[in-house]
């Protein structure tokens, strides 16, 4: 099982690397889809079956499809644009910031200090019970935040003229 984990991890890593370095936007997104599927496999191997299924259905299936939908409409010009943007100079800032994180992860692994700052491990069931128990108002407020988005989208998509609707 550990071999499977490392293979999936390697696929995730390589695919994510190609997402960043690929100049073709749609190809980069396809690599991102591969990375998400590999991530779902890792979740599955770690015992989080439900999270694995949701990862594919929501991220792999729905959100990435929307991304591709938008990027598809960019047309062939986007490749040239991306090439002109991806100069070595643009890599410096993100690389330095990523190196800091890499250092932190390396330190954690080396120190063998896995306990989170709060001092207790969180489980999914615990998270769900807390979310729908004491913090229910927060969840409801967040969902109400989505409602203005929905209404806004409806407003933008509304027909302005009074032409007779055909459906």
């Amino acid at each position: 099982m550990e071999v499977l984990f490392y293979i999936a991890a390697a696929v995730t890593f390589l695919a994510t690397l190609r997402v960043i370095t690929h100049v073709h936007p749609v190809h980069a997104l396809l690599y991102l889809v591969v990375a998400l599927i590999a991530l779902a496999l890792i979740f599955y191997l770690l015992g989080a079956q439900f999270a694995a299924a949701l990862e594919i259905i929501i991220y792999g299936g729905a959100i990435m499809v929307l991304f591709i939908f938008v990027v598809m409409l960019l047309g062939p010009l986007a490749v040239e644009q991306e090439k002109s943007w991806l100069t070595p100079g643009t890599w410096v800032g993100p690389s330095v910031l990523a190196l800091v994180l890499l250092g932190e992860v390396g330190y954690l692994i080396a120190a063998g200090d896995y306990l989170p700052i709060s001092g207790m491990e969180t489980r999914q069931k615990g998270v769900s019970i807390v979310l729908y128990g004491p913090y229910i108002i927060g969840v409801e407020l967040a969902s109400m935040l989505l409602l203005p988005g929905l209404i806004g989208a409806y407003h933008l998509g509304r027909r302005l003229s009074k032409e007779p609707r055909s459906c």
Partner: protein
Amino acid sequence: MIDWSHTALTIGIILGGALMLAGLLIWVERRLLGIWQERYGPNRVGPGGCLQSLADMIKIFTKEDWIPPFADKAVFVITPAIVVITALMSFAVVPIAPSFVIADLNMGAMFFLAMSSLAAYSVIIGGWASNSKFAFLGSLRAIAQLLSYEVFMGLSLMGAVLLAGSFNLSDIVEAQRHQWFVIPQFLGFLGFFMAGLAEAHRTPFDMPEAEAELVAGYHSEYSGMKFGMFFVGEYLSVILLSAMTVILFFGGWHGPWLPPVMWFVLKMAFFIVLIILIRATWPRFRFDQLLSFGWKVVMPLALMNLLATGGVVLWKQG
């Protein structure tokens, strides 16, 4: 320890059976369409024309396999494989009879949804990689249609999951020993079946490949066996939709007298023929009608169904 020989045999039978059935359906569909529309259909090759698929296959293999120079080659080539792979992967969780299933996952229903959402890529990417306007229009339609109907599919399937109290498809079938879920979940069944037709892009929801307006939609540029893969993939998803409908709402392998496998195959065949009958008799929707029907009719019904089912389940638990 997993019994490898048993697993391998099950995989062989289910995958081989599904592919054979998909091949056979090409002939069955054309013949039935012919009979219902008062013409003969293919009746020349073999008795009653039943070897028509074989002749089609020879023809399609010997055709020139052409990749248009303006297409995005790598993506263009892998797309037909995605159709067939995702459809075949879904068969892994389909329980045909007790313990006659490749992988009895606890997340069976979720796995099916995940695979059907990945199947959307074949349509979308295929249309984009072809780099032609008809294919592109087809895939634009497909995205809107698949994304919307995926939501309803998941929502209407959850009613059956709630009643059975499990995502495991074998458990869902077992829970229908005394009463099929189609009775308490009739709305769920309607929603699921409609969403399934839309996911498989079958008539009346086959706008992505409407031949009257879009040549052949997202697979206009495909030829030879690559087109054949799209074709087989479509029939595989028809079989899968019938199988899932039987499992979720029509008691799976349960039935008197006959052995479980026979019942499963008979029920599945009924739905396959029903889907072909729908194609033979129904006109195609207009695209805006499809979307507004989905969001304004199916969506509220599915949500209300889910709410009522959840309420009843909670009330029964006391």
